[in-house]
């Protein structure tokens, strides 16, 4: 892991991976959108609104996936003082917040015709809203210090504390009565969803993952450059 603590080595590796991730994003999105909008049948109960699932569910998965990745990076950053781990969380946070917002709003747009309400304060929706605020809180906290090192450290602690919310989101549909349906893909005993709906769902999930990888690599590069700029300016200010 420490081999990648060297920013120059990381940037070389990232320059190789990034174009492939970007290409995979485009291909997977084209296939995924085709399957979601044309290639899959309407649901026998929900009609065409089931197509909202193909953006709503992958966005929700990404919201959790990105947060867990940031929390792991936070632990690595706190324990081993790994500089790229700190920058990773900073780079990933806006993308994670974006996915969470997409999940919340598309959920609302799906809930309105199917549940007859835009929003309910039940466990799943509320814990997801808390995740959104955790992302925003992290982003605000990290940038609230003059010394970026201190900001990152405070942010890492927040990320680790906020991890408790992740199992709450995952199991909220089993622990409490809710309007939200229980898990139908990632569950014991295998998916209960029809194959012709599962395929577009998984393709879209991979497309979102590839998008995340390609964007986060660009953002990480941008964060590394920002650190370099800061070091150069400090040196200039100190007349060195």
């Amino acid at each position, binding site marked *: 892991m420490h081999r990648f603590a060297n920013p120059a080595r990381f940037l070389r590796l990232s320059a190789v991976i990034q174009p492939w991730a970007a290409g995979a994003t485009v291909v997977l999105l084209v296939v995924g959108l085709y399957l979601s*909008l044309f290639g899959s049948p309407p649901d026998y109960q929900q*009609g065409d*609104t089931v*197509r*909202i699932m193909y953006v*709503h569910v992958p966005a929700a998965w990404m919201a959790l996936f990105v947060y867990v990745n940031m929390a792991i990076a936070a632990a690595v950053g706190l324990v081993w003082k790994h500089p790229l781990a700190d920058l990773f969380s900073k780079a990933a946070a806006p993308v994670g917040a974006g996915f969470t917002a997409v999940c919340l*709003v598309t959920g609302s747009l*799906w809930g309105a015709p199917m549940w007859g309400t835009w929003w309910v304060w039940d466990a799943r929706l509320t814990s997801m809203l808390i995740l959104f605020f955790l992302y925003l809180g992290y982003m605000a906290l990290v940038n609230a210090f003059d010394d970026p090192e201190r900001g990152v450290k405070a942010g890492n602690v927040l990320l680790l504390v906020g991890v408790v919310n992740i199992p709450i989101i995952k199991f909220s549909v089993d622990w409490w009565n809710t309007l939200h349906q229980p898990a139908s893909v990632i569950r014991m005993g295998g998916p209960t969803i029809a194959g012709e709906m599962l395929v577009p769902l998984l393709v879209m999930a991979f497309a979102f993952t590839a998008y995340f990888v390609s*964007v986060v690599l660009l*953002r990480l590069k941008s964060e590394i450059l920002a650190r370099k700029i800061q070091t150069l300016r400090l040196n200039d200010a100190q007349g060195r």
Partner: protein
Amino acid sequence: MAEFFAMGGYAAYIWPSYALTALVMVGLLVATLKGLRSREATLKALEGSRPPRRRARREAAVHETAAEMGEG
């Protein structure tokens, strides 16, 4: 075609969902690229104003020390 866009009467919910997803993903990408380009430009300008770094710095330090010693 019109039937496709009507989405079985749920067009008002389905299309905004996809539009918002596209907007967020494209928006994040554009903001990322803009930030990256501007930082690349800043770094280039900073590095351009201070050519051969290490040696120049060491030599400047030597001169400074020499000047200080000369003053003393």
